[in-house]
C-alpha cells in the first residue's frame, strides 16, 4: 500500500498482516510514518485535504475500508483510537465513556450503565472512580485521563484498538498501569501501538514492525526483532545509533 499527503509520499510499499488479538508495536524514527500508518486504519486521514491511499488497500477483518459501501462511522466504531495527548471531553467521567455509545444511538440507561462499568473495569479505573462518575473528567490526573480515554475507546467494543504513543506524556507509574492494561486488552482486542520506548515495545507487544522513511523494514515477533534483527538498519536503530 502507498499513501500520500498531496504530492509527498508518506508511506510506500507497506504490507502488514496485523495478527488477531495480539499486541503489535510500530517502532521507528520520528517522521517515518508510524502515525500515518495508524491513522490509515481508521481513515482519520480522510479530513486532511489531499491525503489518500494511492496504491493497494487497507483491510479490516478482510473488508477493504475504502469500499463504497463502508460506513465511516461504523468503521470507526470497530477501530477505536487512543491519542498521544489524553483528550477527555470537558464532561463528566460517565458522559465521556458513554459518548461513543450515545452517538451510535444507544439511549437505554441500563445498557449505558453496564457498558460504562465494563469499560472502566477494563481500563482499571472502576475501583478508583466508581463513586465519582459524575465528576468532571478534567479533574483527573494525567494517567487517569489517559486510561479514561482508553475506556472511552473500548466502550463501543471495537475489534481493533489503535494507540499512538499513549504513554509518552505520562509518568512511569501511570505508564506501568497502562502497559498492564494492554496485555489484558489483547485478550479481547487487536491492539496496535506506536511507541518510541523500546522497553515498552518489548514488554507489551507480541509482534513488532520497524518502519523507516515510510517503508516497513522488518516485521516479526517482538522477541526475534529485538534479539536478532535481520536487517542492519533495525539493529542500528535498536542500538540507538540514529534516532
Amino acid at each position, binding site marked *: 500500500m502507498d499513501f500520500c499527503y498531496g504530492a509527498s509520499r508518506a508511506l510506500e510499499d507497506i504490507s502488514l498482516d496485523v495478527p488477531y488479538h495480539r499486541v503489535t508495536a510500530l517502532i521507528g524514527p520520528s517522521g517515518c510514518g508510524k502515525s500515518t500508518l495508524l491513522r490509515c486504519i481508521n481513515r482519520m486521514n480522510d479530513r486532511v485535504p489531499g491525503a489518500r491511499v494511492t496504491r493497494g488497500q487497507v483491510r479490516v477483518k478482510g473488508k477493504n475500508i475504502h469500499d463504497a459501501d463502508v460506513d465511516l462511522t461504523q468503521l470507526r466504531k470497530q477501530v*477505536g483510537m487512543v491519542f498521544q495527548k489524553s483528550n477527555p471531553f470537558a464532561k463528566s467521567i460517565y458522559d465521556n465513556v458513554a459518548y461513543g455509545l450515545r452517538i451510535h444511538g444507544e439511549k437505554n440507561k441500563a445498557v449505558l450503565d453496564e457498558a460504562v462499568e465494563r469499560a472502566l473495569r477494563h481500563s482499571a479505573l472502576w475501583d478508583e472512580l466508581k463513586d465519582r462518575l459524575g465528576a468532571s473528567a478534567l479533574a483527573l490526573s494525567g494517567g487517569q485521563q489517559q486510561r479514561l480515554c482508553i475506556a472511552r475507546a473500548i466502550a463501543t467494543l471495537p475489534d481493533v484498538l489503535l494507540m499512538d504513543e499513549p504513554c509518552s506524556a505520562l509518568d512511569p507509574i501511570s505508564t506501568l498501569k497502562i502497559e498492564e492494561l494492554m496485555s489484558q486488552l489483547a485478550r479481547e482486542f487487536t491492539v496496535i501501538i506506536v511507541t518510541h520506548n523500546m522497553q515498552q515495545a518489548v514488554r507489551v507487544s507480541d509482534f513488532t514492525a520497524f518502519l523507516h522513511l515510510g517503508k516497513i523494514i522488518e516485521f516479526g515477533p517482538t522477541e526475534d526483532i529485538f534479539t536478532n534483527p535481520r536487517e542492519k538498519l533495525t539493529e542500528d536503530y535498536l542500538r540507538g545509533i540514529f534516532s
Partner: protein
Amino acid sequence: MDSSDLPRRPELRNLIIRNRKRTILGFDPQQIIKYFFGANASTAVIVLVLIMIFLVREGVDFLPTNRHELQTYRQAGLEFCDLVDRPLREHQTLSSSLRQCVSAALEPIVKDARERRNAAFLLKTQAEEKAARQREALENALEREPPPAEDQLAALRKDLQTAAAAASQALIYPSLFTAEETALFKAQLAALSPELTDLPPFIQALSAEFMTQDRAAREKYADLVTAQEEFDEAPDDLHELVDELKEQALGAKQSVEESHALAVNRQQLLEAAETTADPDEKASLIKEAEASVGEEVDLTALTKELTARTGELQTQIAAYVESAEKAAASLPDDVGTPDAAALLQKAKKGLPAHVQDMREAATALESWRVDKPVSMLRVIGAFFFGTEWITNSSWQDFFGFVPLLTGSVVIALIAVFIATPISVIAAIYTNQFATDREKELIKPVIEFIQAIPSVVLGFIGISLVGDLIKEFSEVSWLQWIPGFPIQERLNMFNAGCLLAFMAVPTMFSLSEDALNNVPRGYIDASDALGATKLQTVFRVIVPAGISGILSAVLLGLGRVIGETMVVLLVAGNRIAIPDFSAGPGVVFQPAHTLTGIIAQELGEVSRGSSHWQALFMVGIVLFTISLLVNWCARAVARRFESQKA
C-alpha cells in the same frame, strides 16, 4: 559531544555592557521605556476613573436638589391636589373605552345606512367637481351687479346642465344602491345647480334613513348609551373643584420659587460684596441685595386654604363614586359584537379598581400632612422606582427612571434574542462547515457591518424597516401574531432589529473565536469514535465553546445597551412604561431609552438644574450597567479559560 566544542562565552562582555549603560536625565533608559508603556496602559484606567468621578460629581447633587423640589411640591399643596387628580385620570381611559364600546355596538346596525349616505355625498362632490367650471361661471354671473341679461343666464344654465348631465353619467355608482335608486340619483345629480339650496332629495332621504337607524340602534342599546353618557359626565363637578385647587397650589408654588430665586440672588450679591475692595461698589451691591427680598410667602396659610376644602372634596368624590358605580351597575351584559363586548369587559374590569382608588384618595386627603419632611430614601425611591419621567411641565417635573429602563431593557432583549441565534449559527457554520472560500467571504462581510455608521442604520430603520414591519403587520394571514396590526412604525421591535444587526459582528467574531479555541483533541477523539460531523459539532464543539459563546452574547448585549443613535431615531421616543398587558405584542410599542433620553435632552437643559442632574444620574446607571455586563462577560470567559487548562 565534547564540551570544548561549545562556543566560548566571553567573560568580559557583561562588564562591558554595564560600563556602556548611560542615563538620560538621571534615568535609566530601560526604566523610561517601562514607565512610558506603563503610563499608556494606565491612562485608560485613569480616564475611566475620571469619567466615573465626573459623572458622580454632576449626578449626586440630584438627590438634594430633587429633594428640595419634592419638598416644595408638598408644601405648596401640589401633592395634595394630585392625591385626587391622579386617580381621576383613570376616568379618561375608562370613559374612552366605553365610548368606543358604544360605537362598536351601534356599528352593525348603522353601518349600511351610513355607508350609503357617505357614498351618496361622495358622488355628489365628484359630480360637482366635474362640472366645476360651468358651475363657477354661473355662480359668478348670478352674483354680478347689475345682473346680466336673462338670455345670458339661460345660456350658462344650459351649459351647466349639459356638463352636470355628462358628469352624472360618467360617475361610477357603487352596488350599495339598487338600479332604481341609481337612476333616480343620476337624474338628481344631473339637475344640480347652485340655485338649489337644498340637498338632492335622495341624499336627504339617505340622511334621514341613517338618523332613524342610529336612533333605533341607540334605542336598542339604550342602557349602554345612557350609562356611557352618565359616566362621561360624572366627574364634571369634581374636575371643576380640583382644577380650582390646582390653580391655587400652582400660584403658591410659583411665589415660593420666586422668593427662593430672590434669596439665592441676594446671597450671591452679598458674597460678591464681601469680596470687593471698592467701598462704592460694595455699598451698591449691598443695597441691591437688600432690594432683592421677596415678600415672605406664608405657605402654611396657603395650604390651609387647600386643606380646608378637604370636606368639600370628599363629598364631591363620594358623589362621583356613587354616579360612577351607578353607571357601572347599569351597564348591560350583551352588546352584540365581540369587539364591543371586549371593550365593555375592559371597562367593567377597570371600573371597580378605579372606584376603589377614588375612595382611597378620599381617605388619603385626611392623612396628608403638609409639614411632613421628604426623606432622602423617598427621593432615591422616586428616581429608581418612579414610573413617570415628566420634564418641562407647568405642574411638576418628575424624574422616574423606570420607563427609560424598561425601554432599554426590552429593546436590548429583543436585539439579543434576534442576534444570538443568527450570530451563533453563522459562527458554527463558518467555523465548522464553510469552505475556505466561503470563510473568506463571510467573515469580512459580517465584520464590515461594524463599520456602518449607526445613524445610517437609523435612517434605514425609519424609512425601510418601519414600513416593512407595518406592511407585514397588515397581511391577513399573519394576524395571529400578537400586536398585529401595529400602530406605530417606530417601535421597540424596529429598534431591536437594527440593534441586533449591530450586535451580530461582535457576537459572531467572538463566538467564532470561542469555537476556534476548542481543543483539537476533542474533535479528534469524537471523530475517532465514529461521530458524524453534526454530532461532533453539537455534542463536543459547541458544549466546549459554550462559555465563550455566552461571553460573546454578553458583550453583544453590552454593545446594544450603550447604543444611542439608532434607538433615538427608531424606538419611537414615547416616555411611558410599555403596556405589558399586551403580552408579547408589547414589542411593537414605542418607548424611550436611557441612552436616547440623555442624547435628546442634555443639550436643551440648563446646566446645574435638577433635570440636568437627573440626566447625569441616568448616565451613572447606564455606566454601571455597562460595567456589570462587561464584567459578567469576562467572568464567564475566565471560567472558560480555567476549564480549558
